[in-house]
């Protein structure tokens, strides 16, 4: 049986890689992908916690709350990516760039 900590270490490693991607890449699409990776790492930790949660003494069963949270996270991530990619498209059309360093102003 894998200890819970190992799942969390894996999740933490992937999350840190996603953080590195956000900090080190300048292409806005890659920054978005890194954010998705971080969300995914958090999802893994949620499912792992749910699997190791002690059962409810009243019913003797464990509720799949963590898995339901992940379901919501995936839905929010899908909505977020659609809007963010539309912004990236509008950005490219207007400024001809996808480099986040070139986009320092909030409006033109």
């Amino acid at each position: 049986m894998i200890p819970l900590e190992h799942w969390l270490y894996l999740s933490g490693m992937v999350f840190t890689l996603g953080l590195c991607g956000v900090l080190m890449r300048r292409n806005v699409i890659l920054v978005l992908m890194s954010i998705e990776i971080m969300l995914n790492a958090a999802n893994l930790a949620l499912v792992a916690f749910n699997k190791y949660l002690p059962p409810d003494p009243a019913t003797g069963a464990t509720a799949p709350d963590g898995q339901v949270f992940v379901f919501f996270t995936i839905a929010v991530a899908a909505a977020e990516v659609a809007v963010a990619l539309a912004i990236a498209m509008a950005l490219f059309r207007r400024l001809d760039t996808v480099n986040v360093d070139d986009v320092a102003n909030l409006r033109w």
Partner: protein
Amino acid sequence: MGDALFYVFGALMVLFTFLTIRARNPVYSAIFMILSFASTAALFVMLDAFLLAAVEVLVYAGAIMVLFLFVIMLINLRAAEHDGLRVSPLVVLVALTFLLLLGRGIADLGPVPAGANELVGTPQLVAKTLFTRYVVPFEAVSILLLSAILGTVVLARRSGEA
């Protein structure tokens, strides 16, 4: 056998994630990201979250990835290319500090349950919880998705079109 698979898929997930953030060409990044999410789906199966493994492949590796590839190909690829990792000492310091703090936090977690419970995330079980205790957030998500659709259409429209 099952324990070895955890380390195999865990190593694959870390490897593909690293290749995703490192690849110069955004299309390669997208492909490596699919593989990273496929490894995550395999890990979900190992945690008995069968519905989530299927949803992960459908939504992430299917829908979101197609969206990414479409936008990469709509945006001029040559402009987006030649952007590798920009490694600066400050960023490395921030990432290492974050990793260390996270590791310390997990190590100091206190007493954790040693064994897994009997929870198996079948569609029936997850759906029952989703449509009873979490029915209001579920409806809120449907409103969120609708507003995301509207926002995306408005944002992606060329300026000047009606």
